[in-house]
């Protein structure tokens, strides 16, 4: 007989030094955290069963996230709900769940519904004279922003940028919106000869189409 399964969507933040933990390691951290919290995840079938955890969009190493999204499949849950407090005390420092919503098992995977991603780019050392306003001008004036990735493939960032502006809520920081999930703020900085290590890059929000 097939095991009864439940699916939940988690909105969480990733801040501080845990941003230097890679996506594969974060996957492991989630598995362990749920086990600590006594939540029994579902596993895939087969010779090497894997915990059923699905990130909407992997956050690159070194990036913070204010509102990341994760789906989990669970067996044996009491009362059909999970409270955030049930898990938060079992997370390593830097990770915090803000919301847990039960969702339908038949919902398609999140990845294909990402419409856009908002990032903030903040200067770590406010005393450093980094010309953010000229970056806005440079981006707006550029026809193409061709960036070569580690694998040698080039991609054009320009058509992915929906908007770039100063962040009115925080000084010394920019807000950039990319369509989809593939545009990377660190690539943008590098293209304009700025060292990404001098900034804290935070994905503020992932926007999904209505289906997601």
């Amino acid at each position, binding site marked *: 007989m097939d095991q009864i399964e439940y699916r939940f969507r988690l909105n969480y933040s990733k801040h*501080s*030094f*845990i941003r*230097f*933990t*890679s996506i*594969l*390691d974060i996957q*492991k*951290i989630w*598995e*362990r*955290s*749920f*086990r*600590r919290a*006594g939540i*029994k995840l579902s*596993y895939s079938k087969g*010779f*090497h*069963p894997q*915990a059923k955890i699905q990130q909407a969009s992997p956050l690159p*190493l*070194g990036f913070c996230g204010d509102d990341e999204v994760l789906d989990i499949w669970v067996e044996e849950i009491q009362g059909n709900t999970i409270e955030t407090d049930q898990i938060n005390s*079992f*997370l*390593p*420092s*830097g990770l915090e769940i803000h919301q847990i919503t039960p969702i339908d098992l038949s919902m398609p995977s999140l990845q294909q519904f990402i419409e856009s991603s908002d990032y903030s780019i903040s200067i*770590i*050392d406010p005393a450093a004279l980094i010309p953010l306003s000229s970056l806005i001008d440079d981006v707006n004036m550029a026809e193409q922003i061709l960036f070569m990735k580690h694998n040698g493939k080039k991609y054009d960032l320009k058509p992915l940028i929906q908007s770039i502006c100063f962040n009115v809520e925080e000084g010394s920081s920019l807000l950039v919106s990319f369509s989809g999930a593939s545009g990377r703020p*660190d690539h943008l900085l590098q293209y304009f000869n700025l*060292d*990404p*290590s*001098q900034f*804290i890059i935070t994905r503020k929000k992932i926007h999904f189409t209505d289906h997601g």
Partner: protein
Amino acid sequence: MIKKYATPQEITTFLDKTLFNIKKPGRYVGGEFNQIIKDWNSIPVKIALAFPDVYEIGFSNLGLNILYEEINRESNFLAERCFSVWNDMEQSMRASGIPLYSLESKHPVSEFNVLGISLPYETLYTNTLNLLDLSGIPIYREQREETDPLVIAGGHATFNPAPMSAFMDAFVIGDGETIFVKILQIVSEKLSREKTLEKISALESVYVPSFYDPRTYFLSPENSRNPIKKNIVEQLPPAPEKPLVPNIETTHNRIAVEVMRGCSHGCRFCQAGFITRPVRERPLNEILTFLHNAIYQTGYDEISLLSLSISDYSAIQELVSRISSAYKSLNINLSLPSLRIESFSDELMQEIDQRKGNFTLAPESASETMRRSINKPISEDALLETTSFIFQKGWTSIKLYFLIGLPGETMDDVQHIVDLCKKVKAVGKKWVGGRARIAVSINTFIPKCHTPFQWAAMDSVENVAQKHRILREGLQKTGIRLSYPSIDTSLLEGWLSRADEAVSEVIYTAWEKGACFDAWQDNMDLNRWKEAFEEKGIDPFSYSHRLRSQDENLPWDFIDTGVSKTYLKEEYQKSMDGLLTSDCRFNCHACGIQSAYHILCRDLVGEQNGSN
């Protein structure tokens, strides 16, 4: 220039601005689940626990984790951790003048009262010097000032403290539990450095080199001890209640529970077997309670039972089967270290997970003469029967460990290894066909202090090269995977493991020449060491390749492991005569440990100890 001090805020800002460009940045940030952070300002005595290799390796050191929890349990003490940093991070730290810091509170190591360094093997010596330098702490103990931390080393390599004695303020010999807390109690008295060391030297099992004349080991002050008797805990203290859980992949990424300490087999090459006597078992119920707790404290999906010889555990069958029945349904796997070949049983094999790939066996030698010489008498028939059993049970991959370069070994003995491996491959082929994988790992024998072979000479470089050739040529085109350490790696270990005080300066010179991460084969450059020995006018081969007279005073003679020198001599003689010594569990051979510690070994295991 490394600053001695920096504020945690300065260090945090440095990390924020640096780690984006550093490989494996998760090594340098801490923040793991179950990390303990105490209020820095309200705790009077602070110790930084260091493992002088990268985070992934150091994190997995069980001793460090035991001490971390034991010390932090005390309200007046605080323990935080630090590790060596890889080259890219070191360059950035030195360029910015940032000193080595603790992962928990990001305080510089130099601000702790004590720096405790784990030294399980000799190839960490240069890393240790680098760690001190990166902390802004003078490398030579004599140059340290009142405000510098006391630098104290422990671990298996410190059973010969001589080569590191110029750098360490003190050594803890033997089990680390209980003794570090005693040291910190003395430190909490806030006496002068000299007075503190004097009081520490009065503790049994602590060696303070500044109070000893290295040529004679004459005592000063009066309350120092000679010999230094290793520390033993008769009952294994409780395993850590809240083991740390790393945020990144580490060498041993699982729950580790020490099931047993010590080994009763007396394999003559094995230093761990002699220096960790007597055998102490952890009671079965204690292990099961620990595991039940640890799984929910850590969330790990794998359990590892640690012991030098796991199948000797009195209740191994019951332990494995109870773990298996309790946790298999939770997708939690059990892994065991290599099993002794004579210990296999059908029941035991049923419980072990097959998905983990390799099955590891350590016959060590393949000829009858060598088996008798090293006192590990496993017959060829027994080995082949066991491998057949393993393949029948569904494993497809077996890893075999052998030693070469043993005293008295001939080229024929090495050829026996080749022949035996081929036979194992044939057995595999019979049961699982082309899927059978055999990996053969060859280690070069390095005589170690406090073993019956402590007087023996290492095999010559030419002989070892010839033996490598025999193995390479013999196993080529067989599909058997062969690996062995470089001759350089073995030489360095041989030069350092039985070295004396004079080698301190060589270690320093080698480090100045850039030697670091010597345990990393790709990183080790023996030329630096050769030059360093030459500059100091010392022949390194006199430590590794010289047959010592049994009357010779050895640099580690003042360390008392409880096993008498007379016993070691008898065992050495028996090795040369091809005589075996049986498992001392069943027949005491009077090695000396019982009288040295006024104990009965049989009380520490089995029913008497509640282990079954």
